[in-house]
């Protein structure tokens, strides 16, 4: 059970003066239960790659398999039921007159009874932390953070086993961002495979257990946050950054002469400082 990508290539507007190959030579496997972050600078092809994972784009060359089943024109609706996709600024896709109807939009097609729909909507609302009191209000009266929750709820309501997200935290305030990351972690711990695109290296380091770096349309690095963020210079050459905490500890290691592993989260940093203090190598 996995997402399998074989020799993927995609060309926008082939055979015109505007022809552009967005991604090429990508072969990957994403196992069930993984939390993968896709990084890369603007225009590197991350979004194009992600859109292939639920058939929003079909490969120019190569194949994509979901749980062993190849994505073709014919099985798109089953694939999309299995693989949810949350776009950047998902609140822009809301259109129904009430929150409840908007969340239930996807379910309307599945020929479920009203009770089943109701149960699923409530469960999804509970997962994203959406107050049921808002169900009958208009989607356009909500705050930005609430709108985004409604939009994500509308995707989660069909119980996808894979969830793709394009910059889910962009435009949110600090609390909104933390809530979003916590939500994704919770979903992942419940068994949902998550693939997200993010420009925030701090977010990526905090939540992902695997990072895929896309540069000029193909995979440049693929590994744990520790592995990927240990290559600060390579990342810099692709105009990418490492997490702030990594910079801090690299600097600390250089100045103090204490060799340290690559630190990618504040939690790891705290552990290392505690260890250094216990060993007596660091005196506060």
């Amino acid at each position, binding site marked *: 059970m996995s997402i399998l990508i074989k020799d993927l290539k995609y060309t926008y507007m082939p055979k015109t003066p505007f022809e552009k190959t967005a991604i090429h030579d990508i072969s990957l496997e994403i196992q069930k239960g993984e939390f993968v972050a896709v990084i890369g600078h603007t225009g590197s092809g991350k979004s194009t790659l992600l*859109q292939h994972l*639920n058939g*929003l784009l079909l490969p120019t060359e190569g194949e994509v398999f979901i749980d062993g089943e190849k994505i073709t024109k014919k099985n798109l609706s089953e694939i999309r039921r299995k693989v949810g*996709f949350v776009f950047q600024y*998902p609140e*822009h*896709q*809301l259109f129904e007159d009430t929150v409840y109807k908007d969340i239930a939009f996807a379910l309307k097609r599945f020929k479920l009874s009203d009770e089943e729909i109701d149960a699923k909507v409530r469960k999804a609302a509970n997962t994203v932390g959406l107050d049921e009191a808002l169900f009958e209000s208009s989607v356009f009266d909500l705050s930005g953070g609430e709108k985004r929750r409604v939009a994500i709820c*509308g995707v989660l309501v069909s119980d996808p086993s894979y969830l793709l997200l394009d910059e889910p935290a962009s435009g949110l305030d600090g609390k909104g961002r933390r809530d979003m990351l916590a939500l994704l972690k919770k979903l992942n711990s419940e068994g949902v495979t998550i693939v997200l695109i993010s420009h925030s290296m701090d977010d990526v380091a905090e939540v992902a257990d695997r990072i895929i770096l896309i540069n000029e349309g193909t995979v440049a690095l693929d590994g744990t946050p520790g592995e990927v963020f240990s290559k600060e210079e390579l990342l810099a050459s692709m105009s990418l950054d490492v997490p702030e905490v990594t910079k801090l500890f690299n600097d600390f290691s250089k100045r103090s002469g204490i060799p340290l592993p690559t630190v990618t989260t504040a939690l790891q940093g705290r552990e290392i400082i505690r260890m250094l203090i216990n060993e007596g190598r660091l005196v506060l």
Partner: protein
Amino acid sequence: MKISLGRFVPGNSLFHKADPRTKIIWTVAMMVLVLMCRNYVEYAVAAVFVIASFVASKVSFKFILQSLKPILVLLIFTSLFNFLFYRGENVAFMMWSKPIYWESIAMSIKTVVRVVLLIISASLLTYTSSAVSITDGLESLMRPLGVIKVPVHEIAMMMSIALRFIPTFADETDKIIKAQAARGAEFDSRNVIKKVKSYIPVLIPLFIAAFKSAEDMSTAMESRCYRGGKGRTRFKVLRFSSADIVITVATVLFAASIIVLHIFIK
């Protein structure tokens, strides 16, 4: 989005460099001259001139075919009707016991050539000039109408804003369609009513986006002190260049030859 007619293809040819006003007048002149043509010699001269212009514009042949595609049906029908029903004097042959005249064959060929030449010259303008430069050109050409209180600048501004937002909304539509498709919307129903209904989840967010951009746009314009066309200067001033002189001279020569042929060949 597939818009083949009226799509700017960037380039660096004689036509790309020319002033949009030259090209607009050129297009109008071409229409008049092509419609003036009566006999094969005139058509041949016109065809040679149009083809030469196309070579000078360096627009690929594929795009010409693309611009002709939408009128293919129209072409077939007009030539067919001319072929079957035009009454001449010299019978060429009999078809299903109905006489087909030499004149009707000539007429259908002429009609096709005429329409093709018209479309090609009109699409040359849109292939070699961006929408913005066409509006600039039109504004400049229509300026005399300001005397009779036609709000020329405002009309041009509205046109250029509308044109400017077509690609933006095309992108936005594409994004919304994808987002709705990702959560289960289907747009390929055969039932017409269902098909229209299935676009509601796209249209509503699109309208909201349009109103939002309109609001942002007007705020941005106001905060830059936009107050209509009065006393406004231009960042890109339209100027006649050598390219314009070349096109003008060529067109005048072409027009002269058509008029001469018109007078001398009956």
